[in-house]
């Protein structure tokens, strides 16, 4: 659990760095996100007059929800403590509740930008979540479980082979991950240009420690998706539940390696593509949904053959 | 000797004679009530003394039910009519002379209907029913307004044609019976006819039934013979509308049932069932659609009577113990409910000073008792629980759907459409912001609520004795 806390800003920083490099900039140092967090924590909170108690509670809820969700993912070692307390569906739902509250926060102060942000956010989510669930269906039907550890284990045991549906699922999952983490081309975390903001517009009114928490939460989310992809599609190296110290170190190392690879790929992807109009996003996500559904259907049919 | 049977017809006759000579409308009104009450009591006594049926008069389970129902509604209606007529005289729509005439006619009508019910002779029954018709013609026209006279005239002409057709049917029945039974009176006596029905000439019976169906069907108000009914209900005094809907239709139906039994006994004759079923369905659907564009409240409920007569005829046409039972139940429930509704409507029309639905509104606000009474009545007549008509409709539909799915489906459609029409109007009458003037009128709510209470109780609990009686009759009807 703590590991993810430590790693997540690093990942973000890495992605930023790589992007900067690709743009021939020097870019911020790797540890910049940590510094940002600390700085924000030091600052005082400027709270809008019209903000309610909910506005001040939400950051903690969001953070906690995301944190719990991340810590349920078998990152370097399957069969984590309590990983059976929630399966992949529950995990998605946890992220969903985090987003629910964040959207509420966007509406709470009663500004127009908050409204833009949360309305667009829920629109995106209304497509991303079903797509994600379809992906879960595909994987769960293949692995015969919605339990992440079990799925990872199943994937590791080479009995899967190459399946079309899995490929579709991977593709869809990547799309969803991009959308959920507010990355280009769906959203741009680095802009405050009102026409394009989605995620940033929601948290516009936050400052100080609240903003720190929310940023931290979004970094965790990025980490979560990368590690989900990692543990589901490249599970090799994850230590078995009864693995010794050596296995665990291998697990950790491979995990970190996976993270960096994933971050690198993401950065490359982001720099190589342009942001798309908000109302072209549904088509983008609809593609993901279709892919997921297709995967599931294929699975249903192939099962019967 | 004067037994209960003759009493049932003697009392009204005597009362009619008295009322036609006695002065003073208050006295005559009271006397009218008393006579009706006496008739009712004698009718009830039929169950105790149970007299034999002679060559002219007949009593069996079938007409016992009808007689008691008729006399009871006749009694309650006389109570209602007393207060109604009071108000009519106050506002000067009727002169005392006309009221005396009215009361006399009322008793004549009761006499005719009872006679039709107890007659053991098809000729006698025919005479009685025609007498009843002509009496009601006179009473419909009593207001002497243009509409009233037109309604009466229409009723008169169509009625006379109906009379003629019914008579021809009766003659044919006699012709069919004569070769078997022999000439003379015997060949027109129910009890004799029924025993020999199997040997009658089927073809003659068929023709006879066609004529009887059309002749008496005109009185029952089956579409397309119904034309007289809505106007007669709308233009006559409301007590008469109540009696027409509640009783006269039943009496004509009773005649039809008798002849149906006769035909049912003859294997070679056509089954009367299908004809009745078809006419019933036509009437039900047609009336249901006609409910929608009504502007006159009494005319609307007249059409609802046509619809229910259609349902009843349908039930009897389907036959079978369950459907017949349901038909009988529906008939009695409809008589009570519909007369109750007309009681309410009569007072409402007096309170509002009009029969135009558009000029009524928010009755449950302005005059709550009448308004809710009407709502309850409409709920009952629309076949909603927990009132009696729901029971009968339940039995009719559920028992016929397994046998004739399509017919039952059509019937259901008719009922649904009718419900829509009734409540569409009820919304404007009973609810919404009050409209139109509201004058005081001391009304007698007792008859209305007595009827509704009976219907309500029957919807939940039916005394076994009544049920046994109905089931006997249902078996009788085959």
């Amino acid at each position, binding site marked *: 659990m703590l590991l993810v806390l430590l790693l997540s800003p690093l990942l973000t920083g890495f992605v930023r760095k790589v992007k900067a490099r690709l743009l021939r900039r020097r870019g911020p140092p790797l540890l910049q996100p940590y510094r940002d967090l600390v700085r924000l924590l030091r600052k005082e909170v400027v709270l809008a007059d019209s903000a309610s108690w909910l506005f001040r509670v939400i950051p903690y809820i969001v953070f906690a929800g995301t944190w719990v969700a991340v810590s349920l993912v078998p990152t370097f070692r399957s069969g984590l403590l309590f990983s059976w307390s929630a399966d992949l569906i529950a995990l998605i739902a946890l992220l969903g509740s985090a987003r629910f509250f964040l959207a509420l926060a966007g509406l709470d102060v009663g500004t127009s930008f908050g409204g833009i942000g949360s309305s667009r956010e829920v629109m995106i989510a209304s497509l991303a979540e079903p797509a994600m669930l379809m992906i879960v269906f595909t994987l769960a039907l293949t692995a015969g479980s919605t339990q992440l550890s079990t799925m990872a284990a199943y994937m590791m045991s080479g009995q899967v082979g190459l399946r079309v549906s899995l490929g579709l699922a991977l593709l869809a999952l990547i799309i969803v991950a991009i959308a959920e983490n507010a990355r280009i081309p769906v959203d741009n975390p680095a802009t405050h240009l009102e026409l394009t903001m989605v995620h940033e517009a929601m948290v516009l009114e936050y400052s100080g420690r609240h903003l720190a928490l929310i940023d931290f939460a979004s970094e965790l989310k990025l980490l979560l998706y990368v590690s989900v992809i990692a543990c589901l599609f490249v599970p090799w190296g994850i230590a078995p539940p009864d693995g010794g110290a050596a296995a665990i170190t291998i697990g950790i190392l491979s995990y970190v390696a996976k993270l960096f690879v994933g971050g690198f790929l993401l950065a490359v992807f982001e720099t190589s593509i342009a942001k798309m109009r908000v109302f072209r996003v549904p088509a983008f996500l609809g593609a993901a949904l279709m892919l997921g559904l297709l995967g599931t259907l294929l699975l249903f049919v192939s099962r019967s053959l | 000797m004067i037994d209960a049977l003759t009493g049932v017809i003697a009392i009204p006759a005597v009362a009619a004679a008295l009322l036609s000579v006695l002065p003073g409308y208050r006295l005559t009104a009271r006397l009218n009530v008393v006579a009706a009450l006496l008739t009712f009591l004698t009718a009830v006594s039929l169950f105790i003394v149970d007299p034999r049926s002679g060559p002219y008069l007949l009593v069996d389970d079938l007409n016992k039910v009808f007689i008691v129902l008729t006399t009871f509604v006749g009694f309650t209606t006389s109570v209602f009519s007393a207060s109604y007529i009071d108000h009519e005289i106050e506002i000067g729509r009727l002169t005392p002379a006309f009221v005396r005439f009215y009361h006399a006619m009322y008793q004549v009508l009761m006499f005719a209907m009872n006679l039709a019910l107890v007659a053991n002779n098809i000729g006698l029954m025919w005479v009685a029913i025609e007498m009843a018709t002509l009496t009601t013609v006179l009473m419909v026209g009593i207001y002497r307004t243009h509409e009233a006279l037109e309604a009466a005239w229409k009723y008169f002409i169509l009625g006379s044609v109906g*009379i003629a057709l019914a008579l*021809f049917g009766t*003659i044919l029945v006699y012709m069919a019976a004569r070769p078997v039974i022999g000439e003379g009176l015997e060949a027109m006596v129910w009890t004799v006819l029924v025993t020999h029905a199997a040997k009658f000439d089927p073809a003659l019976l068929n023709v006879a039934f066609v004529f009887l169906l059309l002749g008496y069907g005109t009185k029952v108000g089956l579409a397309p013979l119904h034309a007289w009914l809505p106007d007669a209900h709308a233009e006559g005094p409301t007590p008469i509308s109540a009696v027409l809907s509640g009783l006269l239709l039943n009496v004509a139906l009773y005649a039809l049932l008798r002849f149906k039994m006769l035909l049912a006994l003859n294997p070679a004759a056509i089954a009367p069932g299908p004809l009745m079923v078809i006419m019933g369905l036509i009437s039900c659907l047609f009336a249901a659609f006609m409910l929608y564009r009504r502007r006159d409240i009494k005319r609307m409920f007249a059409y609802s009577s046509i619809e229910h007569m259609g349902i009843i005829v349908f039930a009897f046409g389907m036959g079978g113990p369950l459907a017949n039972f349901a038909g009988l139940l529906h008939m009695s429930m409809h008589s009570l409910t519909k007369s109750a509704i007309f009681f309410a409507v009569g007072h409402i029309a007096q309170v509002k000073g009009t029969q135009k639905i558009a000029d009524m509104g928010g009755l449950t606000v302005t005059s709550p008792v009448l308004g809710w009474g009407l709502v309850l009545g409409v709920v009952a007549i629309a076949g909603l629980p927990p009132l009696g008509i729901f029971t009968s409709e339940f039995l009719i539909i559920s028992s016929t759907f397994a046998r004739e799915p399509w017919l039952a489906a059509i019937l259901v459609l008719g009922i649904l459409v009718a419900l829509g029409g009734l409540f569409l109007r009820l919304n404007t009458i009973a609810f919404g912001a009050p409209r139109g003037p509201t004058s005081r009128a001391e009304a007698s709510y007792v008859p209305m609520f007595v009827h509704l209470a009976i219907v309500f109780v029957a919807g939940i609990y039916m005394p076994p004795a009544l049920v046994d009686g109905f089931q006997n009759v249902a078996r009788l009807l085959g």
Partner: protein
Amino acid sequence: MRGLSFDVSHLLAGSLVLVSFIQLYQDRLYALLNVYALHALVLAASVAWQAFVQDAPHLYLTAVIALVFKAIIIPTALHRIIVRLGIHREIETVVGVGPTMLLGMGLVALSMVVMLRVTADADPLAREDLAFALSVVLLGLLMMVTRRNAVSQVVGFMSLENGLVLAATGAKGMPLVVEISVAFSVLIAFIVIGIFLFRIRERFDTVDVQALDRFRGERQ
């Protein structure tokens, strides 16, 4: 004797139908009334013949009623009404006379078919009578629905009722025949009076109430 009686009654009944056709053919009110008188006359004859054949004396009474009331009183009364109300004398028809006649033919054929399906054991006399009676009834109805004038409709109704009486008398030994004929005469009287009271000039449907009130005024 049997044969003869049969032929005579057959002849009379048949002629009754024929007269009904003649009625259908008329287009003048007075002529129509005269033909109706003839109709009633024929009816009276046939009733009388039936009375003779069935030696049922009470039927003579019916015959007399038919003769006096229907053949004499009613037509004259209607004459007077026509004069009093100034009803104009042509008969407006809904369908032309020719089609009406054809329809009438069809009706007669129909009644024949319906009635002759009666199994043979019913005696032929009754059967014929019934067939004719039925066709007279139907023709009367036809007249009521194809004529617009109130008077001609009344005439139609009356000939219909003649058909009924014919049937009733044809029914051997049927009780109450006399009463019935009387009752019907009363009915017709009602209608005629109604026409007079309500000042029904052309149509059955237009009731003139002012006239009625005036009348009441005269009475009181």
